[in-house]
């Protein structure tokens, strides 16, 4: 027994030493070599939001390919390793571990989806791996700790804009919420609830659906019964057309309006005339607008992905990658995860050339100056409805 205790003591001392030794940062940073920076991405390439995933990946690669063809940044080329998480949180976790522990990526880049990115948040924080510009605008990222850096106005900010627009401009007081029953849908849903309270209102109906659901007839019936004049779509691109169809089928024609994830051409392709008049919030310009940054985007997409149509989805990835390259350039040759965060924070009032400015620094890890505007589906195209506005910071309480 004594011997057993003794060896146990020795063992725990050894473990203690190892733990102590491990906590001293012996920094040859993972994923950075003389010639390369390796980035990881978890995207949905084959699942319910594959359109976003495939296009975000292409948009990011268009920038990286151009930069690499010109010799890279400070002599280092950028390599992106992307895995498919099928929009499923458990798979996202497996992929993140594979990227961090086996592929040894320097940072996670453009990780797609709110529920999926939330699933890997704590892991990345623990491993001190930067989560750069995840492709989710949940308000969660404003309070997620040091290693998470968002890029655009959040779903809560956007929903506050929607509510104010409906109540003040459209004089609509019967507003319903149709939301995805997970961290994504709930973010805007709860933010909207908080903003309605400010106007002394509540949702007249709160109707949820599950990720990858395909039938919304019961949701349509509930919305109709509530008599809502406007329905806020905390959804992606597959649900709004189907919901609109099923509402129209029972003779119910409310105003549909939703945050940025619904603003893509796929929504129109699927919905046709049923999505005519749907309003969306946009947090960056349309792919067809003028400006040097968008000219470059169009040229890069044509060169590297000639078979992909220009769409808000690949522009979303493209602007993330362009912002990342700007940070790398500011960083200089000595690159660590800490120095990357500092370089991002040095970005202030920076305009890549499309009239919207990014600002980081202090506690503000979201960057873009909360710019947004409204767009509407008109004659089968997303069309400008309002000018750019500075959103106030929304909250869920």
């Amino acid at each position, binding site marked *: 027994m004594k011997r057993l205790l003794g060896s146990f003591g020795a063992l725990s001392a050894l473990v203690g030493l190892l733990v102590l030794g491990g906590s001293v940062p012996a920094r040859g940073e993972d994923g950075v070599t003389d010639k390369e920076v390796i980035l990881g991405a978890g995207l949905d*390439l*084959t*699942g*319910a939001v*594959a*359109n976003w995933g*495939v296009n975000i990946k292409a948009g990011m690669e268009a920038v990286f390919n151009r930069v690499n063809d010109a010799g890279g940044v400070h002599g280092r080329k950028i390599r992106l390793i992307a895995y498919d998480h099928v929009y499923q949180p458990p798979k996202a976790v497996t992929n993140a571990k594979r990227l961090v522990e086996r592929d040894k990526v320097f940072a996670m880049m453009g990780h797609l989806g709110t529920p999926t990115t939330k699933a890997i948040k704590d892991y990345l924080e623990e491993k001190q791996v930067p989560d750069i510009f995840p492709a989710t605008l949940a308000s969660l990222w404003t309070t997620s700790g040091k290693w998470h850096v968002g890029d655009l106005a959040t779903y809560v900010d956007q929903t506050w804009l929607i509510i104010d627009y409906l109540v003040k401009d459209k004089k609509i007081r019967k507003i319903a919420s149709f939301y995805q*029953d997970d961290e994504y849908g709930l973010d805007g849903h709860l933010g909207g609830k908080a903003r309605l309270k400010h106007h002394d209102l509540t949702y007249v109906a709160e*109707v*949820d*659906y*599950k990720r990858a*659901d*395909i*039938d919304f*007839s*019961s*949701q349509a*019936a*509930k919305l*109709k*019964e509530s008599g809502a004049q406007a329905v806020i779509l905390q959804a992606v691109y*597959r649900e709004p057309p*189907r919901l609109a*169809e*099923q509402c*129209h*089928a*029972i*003779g119910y024609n409310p105003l549909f309006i939703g945050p940025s994830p619904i603003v893509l051409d*796929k929504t129109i*392709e*699927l919905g*046709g005339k*049923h999505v005519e008049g749907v309003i969306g919030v946009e947090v960056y310009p349309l792919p067809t607008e003028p400006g040097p940054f968008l000219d470059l985007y169009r040229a890069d997409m044509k060169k590297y992905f000639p078979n992909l149509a220009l769409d808000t989805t690949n522009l979303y990835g493209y602007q993330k990658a362009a912002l990342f390259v700007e940070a790398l350039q500011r960083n200089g040759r000595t690159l660590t995860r800490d120095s990357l965060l500092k370089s991002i924070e040095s970005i202030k009032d920076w305009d890549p050339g499309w009239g919207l400015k990014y600002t980081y620094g202090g506690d503000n890890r979201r960057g873009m100056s909360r710019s947004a505007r409204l767009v509407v589906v008109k004659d089968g195209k997303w069309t400008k409805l309002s000018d750019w506005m500075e959103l106030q910071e929304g909250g869920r309480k």
Partner: protein
Amino acid sequence: MAEILTSQVVSGLATGCVYALIALGFVLIFKATDVVNFAQGEFVMVSGFISYTLLVWYGLPYWVVLFATIVLSGFMGVGLERLVVRPIMDAPIFSIVIATIGASTVLRSSAGIIYGYDVLPLPTIFSKDPIRLGILSFTAMDAGVIGSSLAIMLALYLFFKLTKTGMAMRATAQSQTAARLMGVSITRIFSLTWAISAAVGGVAGVLIAPIIYLDPNLGLIGVKAFAGAILGGFGSIPGAIVGGMLLGVLENLSGYFFNAGIKQVSTYILLILVLVVRPSGLFGAASVRKV
């Protein structure tokens, strides 16, 4: 209220009819060959893509596409039977079932490689505009789906009842040995069964894909149809039809009275309840075994 409820029932019936068609495919193959074909859902998906290719890529007229899709789906069924099932016909049933699961994965991935994983809208001749008849409110799409499904079921019924081949198939389902002794070619009947099942799945694909959009994961709808087939009593043709329809309606109503979470599990709750009370399903013959 009444109007909303009836429209819920009608649109549930439309989805339920599609479940019923897929469930029929399961049951036909099971009755004839004792195999549960887990690629049945993929028949639906592949036929959706066949009609998409003919309609959108080649611009053929709708009726030609419908006919061609059914025929091509039939060939797909025969192909699967010849390539995957027949070579291992003497293996335990369990191995064959696993082989069909493998086939379903291959079909799904192939569709993904060829068409990508994005959702595609499949054109249809049925309008999605509302039609009102008294307190009934539905779309031409719903009516079209229900009508076409019933027509297919009727055609199948007549085929089994009136034709010689149909009788041979029923005979094979009852006793393969006796059928063979009567001069029925069992291998031909097997091929034909797979062809019919896949063709029925093909109809389901053409009907459902315009409603829920087309993508390589469309075949997952087969899981619900399978539940429908069990609900009705696996092995019973009327059971598959009633079970599928019941499922569609129940799904809609539970979504209406409760929330999306309940809607998702309601079918399985019902399934368990029915199986507890009637282990052989609604229409299934209780299996009595003499010991």
